[in-house]
């Protein structure tokens, strides 16, 4: 018995270096964000702290800019998530159930390739497609839908299109893992018991895909709400999102104290959103009999 306890303590020491890193580089910095939110200015080059003030919080809650942008960002997040679901659901179903099993691996790999490609390269390529006289505009011009010398680049629409494109693979992969796990016999049983296609979908397939759908929502909504690269590069003058506001405090205005406050309030809102989605995930798993 004493041997076992000895082995137990010695063995778990292997976790120590990683634990230390997670503590020092993730948990502690996130907690200290609250402390830094009260700074009245920038931290000096050698770590000298400026004075403390509550003005940052007063500034956030008295001006509407932050909440307007936060509202807009969550809105864009919801639109992008919704479009991703509509695009991804039939495709994920197709990969999981319609395609031949031997092709499934290949199809999934093909989704992973854009997922692993640099975000900046994808944005850059989308910009050449969306630009005036670019690929998309030439086609639209040819079909006489739009003037090819104009462009939707530098509008909120462009930001949404690129975000949908970037996060579509996440949604497909999440939905695929859930849909693939549905036993075909369940679907056959539903049919032979007299349920139609719509009823089978609503009562069998959709509830079974809920955990994957919700984790897809989590993986799309959270990063999209916090995106700042896309609004900066594609958004134009009115394309600002909350991420670009936070970024500007660190790269343009250089007011780290206020930047920390913005990040902190943003983080709190995001954590609330994540907690709600997680709660739904647990409930969905419970209702289909998982653990």
């Amino acid at each position, binding site marked *: 018995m004493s041997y076992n306890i000895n082995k137990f303590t010695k063995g778990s020491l292997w976790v120590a270096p990683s634990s230390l890193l997670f503590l020092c580089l993730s948990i502690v910095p996130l907690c200290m964000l609250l402390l830094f939110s009260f700074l009245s200015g920038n931290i000096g080059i050698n770590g000298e702290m400026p004075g403390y003030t509550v003005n940052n919080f007063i500034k956030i809650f008295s001006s509407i800019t932050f909440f307007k942008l936060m509202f807009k960002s969550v809105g864009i997040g919801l639109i992008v998530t919704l479009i991703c679901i509509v695009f991804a659901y039939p495709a994920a179903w197709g990969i999981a159930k319609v395609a031949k099993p031997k092709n499934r691996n290949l199809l999934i790999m093909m989704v992973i390739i854009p997922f692993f490609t640099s*975000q900046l390269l994808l944005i850059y390529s989308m910009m050449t497609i969306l630009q005036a006289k670019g690929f998309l505009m030439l086609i639209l011009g040819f079909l006489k839908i739009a003037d090819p010398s104009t462009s939707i680049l530098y509008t909120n629409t462009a930001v949404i299109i690129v975000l949908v494109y970037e996060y579509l693979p996440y949604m497909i992969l999440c939905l695929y893992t859930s849909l693939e796990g549905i036993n075909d016999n369940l679907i056959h049983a539903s049919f032979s018991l007299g349920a139609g296609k719509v009823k089978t979908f609503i009562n069998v397939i959709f509830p079974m895909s809920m955990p994957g759908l919700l984790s897809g929502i989590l993986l799309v909504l959270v990063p999209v709400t916090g995106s700042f690269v896309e609004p900066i590069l594609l958004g134009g003058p009115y394309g600002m999102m909350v991420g670009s506001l936070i970024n500007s405090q660190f790269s343009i205005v250089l007011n780290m104290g206020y930047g920390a406050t913005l990040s902190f309030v943003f983080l709190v809102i995001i954590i609330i959103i994540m907690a709600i989605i997680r709660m739904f995930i647990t409930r969905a798993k419970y209702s289909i009999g998982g653990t």
Partner: protein
Amino acid sequence: MNRGFNNVIRIWMVFIYIILFLPIIVIVLMSFNKTNYGMLPYVFCLDWYTYLFTKSELFPATLLSLELAFSVTALATVLGTAAAVGLQYMSRQLSARFQSISQLPIIIPWLVQAISILLLLNFTGLGRSYIGMFLGNLIVVLPYVIMMVAGRFADADRTPEDAARMLGASQLRVFFDIILPMLFPGILSGALMSFMVCFNAFCMQYFLAPFGVRTLPMEIFTLIRTGYKPDINALATLLIIVTTIIVLALNKLKYSVKKMFGT
């Protein structure tokens, strides 16, 4: 389901794959086009590739990104594997708790994660520095390695380990002769994955890189804003080929999407 419905699904799949690959195909086509900026007429040429290898200004940034990705991956692989081994000695409950905490750096929006690390580094007087950038990238790839290796533990048959112990093999011998070879596919998947993630982790590098130093994603970000030369397409095409090879390798290693996206 009937055939008509399945055909609609098939057509939809083709549409989705076209959307997914359109930007990638456009980049590849542009890299062989003599006319700049994705414009017509399309004239085939290899000039951008020769330009890339002779006078491109993208080279220092690419080299820095490669160095960063290799060094971060090396340390993350060792630490992540060690952590996954250590988890086996912990109670199931404690191990699950550790794993969910270890996911924190990839679940929290990277903007906030990067800014909080930057503030901490400023607080300690380190500021924007190579070591800061290294640590920032390390913390966002470490969860992936732990996930892949721990997943391998969960899948593997553990009886050879017990057999070896019973036959009198030392802890060290069991580790090197049985556990390590068993974990190898997981370790390699984790390493490949963390290499890709680190190479592309724009956000972490943007906030933590020393002033004036640019990694490849940062260089592309700057070039998009200030104007670029088409050799970027040639480089992008090569990167896409490397990505494809890595994805194929992951597939050979039985990299399972379920590990990453299953709930």
